């Protein structure tokens, strides 16, 4: 069948099984928009800013595990998409982004709305393509989806000059593709896995630290079995929350800068560390010179370049998390040796002492709403079953600390790039994927304004997202650092001239709520959740001075956490076994 490039585009997406494409039209993609108009299979979601399109596709991908798809025009369309592409890149999210380009013969002439999209996006994509011949289009699309979704996932950009979308050729979509220069390792080395199992079984103070890779590989079941079979403590990174059930007693909370005291102390004192699908990010490790001083380290990761990048490891295992853990489980089941029960008992005593510090404690009075209380109340009312997106700042950390995720793909947050503006568009993607699920966006009054125009998209597609603004009238995280490290010089971190969010939400056709008293928090959330078909925008006026605790400050190690004013002080006199 002979088709135009634009028709090949829509046909390929259909053959790839794409449900949604998030986009915004413009001159260079008009042929494509015309082809989209003439078909019904692929649903186009019109956003209000290209950044919103990329975050929405990203949220869709994180919630479902499928590849998110974006279409933007050349020039400003492409540059507006860059923040979202970089966000997906840093968190290894599968995404295919189509950028329109000026006609081939105009490339390099500084034509109207021309930018070098391939050049601009090169450092923040897994790979990118410029299509030069319509006969390459279908294969390029197939390759893009293959690259984006396999190995360590990531965004792939395809730049399509306008003339290519008008030219014609015979269409056939490749069923599968192999590339001589790209073949990710899936199976781990059996010898290495055996060594890892031996080391794990000989541990006296073991620790299991897992990241977003477990979620990307859908390895949460295998991880849960492994942890429970061994009875070892498990911690998740910000990106890895939900991979292990947060309400299980073996879970010691998130680790890192605002992780729990018990998780970080256990990292510091462990003698064997199993790292799964995590990358030793600086927000997780604290000062590298003080990192896990006694630990022998095993690291499972699909990306060889993540291994021994920041921290040298003793037993590297390159492979897909899910496949490697399955192999490990088999060996463990067959093994006669079992973990040292006495050593483990002592280790858990020690961890329980750290737990007794109650590092996340806060006190809710009856005057000012504590931001933690809002998150905790949402958690209780929703029974931990919502999909929660966040923006970036204090509210993000409180969401991660107080909403307990028992399942993967329920926590959607920009970890690597830390992109303010991510939360609401990401929630749109998740809500479209799961129209009947509760999707909540926990955000700050600064972050929400970065993509506020997407309120209009939510109206157009009837997305009943619940937005919870923890409104402290500050860029709270910036203010906290200024309080701690800059002698309370609050330079440009106060959010002056805030809009009336209730009226703003109403003007977009949504329900707005203002909540100012602690006693109203629970009722308000319950009320909002009753609105199954409407978006509700909740503006919680919270305590301006609240800080995120505990905290590892710059240059400090896991064992040097600064505790908050409300944590219990419990002497830890039990000695290590």
């Amino acid at each position, binding site marked *: 069948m002979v088709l135009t490039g634009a028709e090949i585009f829509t046909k390929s997406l259909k053959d790839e099984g794409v449900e949604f494409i998030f986009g915004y039209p413009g001159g260079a993609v008009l042929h494509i928009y015309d082809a989209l108009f003439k078909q019904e299979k692929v649903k186009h979601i019109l956003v209000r800013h290209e950044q919103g399109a990329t975050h929405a596709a990203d949220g869709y991908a994180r919630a479902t595990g499928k590849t998110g798809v974006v279409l933007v025009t050349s020039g400003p369309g492409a540059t507006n998409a860059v923040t979202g592409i970089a966000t997906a890149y840093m968190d290894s999210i599968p995404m295919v982004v189509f950028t329109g380009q000026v006609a081939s013969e105009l490339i390099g002439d500084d034509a109207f709305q021309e930018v070098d999209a391939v*050049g601009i996006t*090169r450092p923040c994509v897994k790979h*990118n393509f410029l299509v030069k011949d319509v006969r390459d289009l279908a294969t390029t699309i197939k390759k893009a989806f293959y690259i984006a979704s396999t190995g360590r996932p990531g965004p792939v950009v395809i730049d399509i000059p306008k003339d290519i979308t008008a030219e014609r050729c015979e269409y056939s979509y490749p069923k599968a593709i192999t590339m001589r*220069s790209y073949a990710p390792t899936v199976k781990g080395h059996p010898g290495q896995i055996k060594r890892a199992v031996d080391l794990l079984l000989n541990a006296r103070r073991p620790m299991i630290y897992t990241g977003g890779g477990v979620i990307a590989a859908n390895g949460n079941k295998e991880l849960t079995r492994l942890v429970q079979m061994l009875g070892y403590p498990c911690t998740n990174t910000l990106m890895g929350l939900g991979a292990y059930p947060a309400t299980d007693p073996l879970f010691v909370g998130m680790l890192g800068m605002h992780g729990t005291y018990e998780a970080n102390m256990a990292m510091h004192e462990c003698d064997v560390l199993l790292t799964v699908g995590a990358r030793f990010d600086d927000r997780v490790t604290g000062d590298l010179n003080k990192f896990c001083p006694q630990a022998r380290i095993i690291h499972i990761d699909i990306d060889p*370049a993540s291994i*021994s990048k920041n921290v*040298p490891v003793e037993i590297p295992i390159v492979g897909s998390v899910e496949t490697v853990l399955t192999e490990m489980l088999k060996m463990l089941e067959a093994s006669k040796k079992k973990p040292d029960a006495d050593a483990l008992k002592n280790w858990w005593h020690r961890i329980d002492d750290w737990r007794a510090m109650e590092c996340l404690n806060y006190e809710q009075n009856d005057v000012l709403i504590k931001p933690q209380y809002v998150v905790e109340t949402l958690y209780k009312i929703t029974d931990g079953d919502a999909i929660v997106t966040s923006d970036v700042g204090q509210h993000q950390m409180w969401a991660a600390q107080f909403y307990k995720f028992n399942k993967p793909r329920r926590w959607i947050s920009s970890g690597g790039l830390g992109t303010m503006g991510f939360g609401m568009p990401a929630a749109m993607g998740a809500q479209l994927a799961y129209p009947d699920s509760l999707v909540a966006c926990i955000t700050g009054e600064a972050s929400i304004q970065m993509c506020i125009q997407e309120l209009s998209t939510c109206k157009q597609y009837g997305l009943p997202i619940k937005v919870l603004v923890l409104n402290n009238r500050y860029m709270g995280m910036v203010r906290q650092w200024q309080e701690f490290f800059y002698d309370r010089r609050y330079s440009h971190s106060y959010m002056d001239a805030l809009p009336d969010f209730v009226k703003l939400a109403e003007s977009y056709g949504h329900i707005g709520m203002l909540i100012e008293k602690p006693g109203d928090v629970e009722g308000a959330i319950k009320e909002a959740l009753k609105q199954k078909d409407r978006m509700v925008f909740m503006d919680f006026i919270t305590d301006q001075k609240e800080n995120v605790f505990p905290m590892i400050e710059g240059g400090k190690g896991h064992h040097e956490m600064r505790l908050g004013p409300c944590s219990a002080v419990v002497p830890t006199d039990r000695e290590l076994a």
Partner: protein
Amino acid sequence: MRHIISILLENEAGALSRVAGLFSARGYNIESLSVAPTEDETLSRLTLVTRGSDEIVEQITKQLNKLVDVVRLQELTEGPHIEREMMLIKIKASGKDREESKRIVDIFRGHIIDVTETTYTIELTGNCNKLNAFLQALGSVDIIEVVRSGVSGIARGDKGLRV
């Protein structure tokens, strides 16, 4: 430590900029880079010289391997190998320098490939050290310009870097 990395690269537009971009983005240095098509027109062969600790070079090779356009890669300095570089050099050659520089070229087995009344243009091939030694040996001779090709390298023995 100096390391030589040989790469077979897809002969695609933008492939070279991915390699160069990786080095600048991650703060690695490139001492020299030479690249040309191979007998298989879909592939380019690239020889890259860099300096860094073993850990850094391990990261460099892993990051290079991650680039979708990199088909094969080998660190030549890990085993026995041969490296060659070509240099074209134009010098002032008048008066007593004319005789003296001709003598030095002969000692280094270079060729004079262009001559004017006052200049020589010399071609010299060898490893890095030889080229540097030649430049030093020229001493006070007035150098007009130096063009170096960058290192090309190949492993010794019967194994080869190919698809």
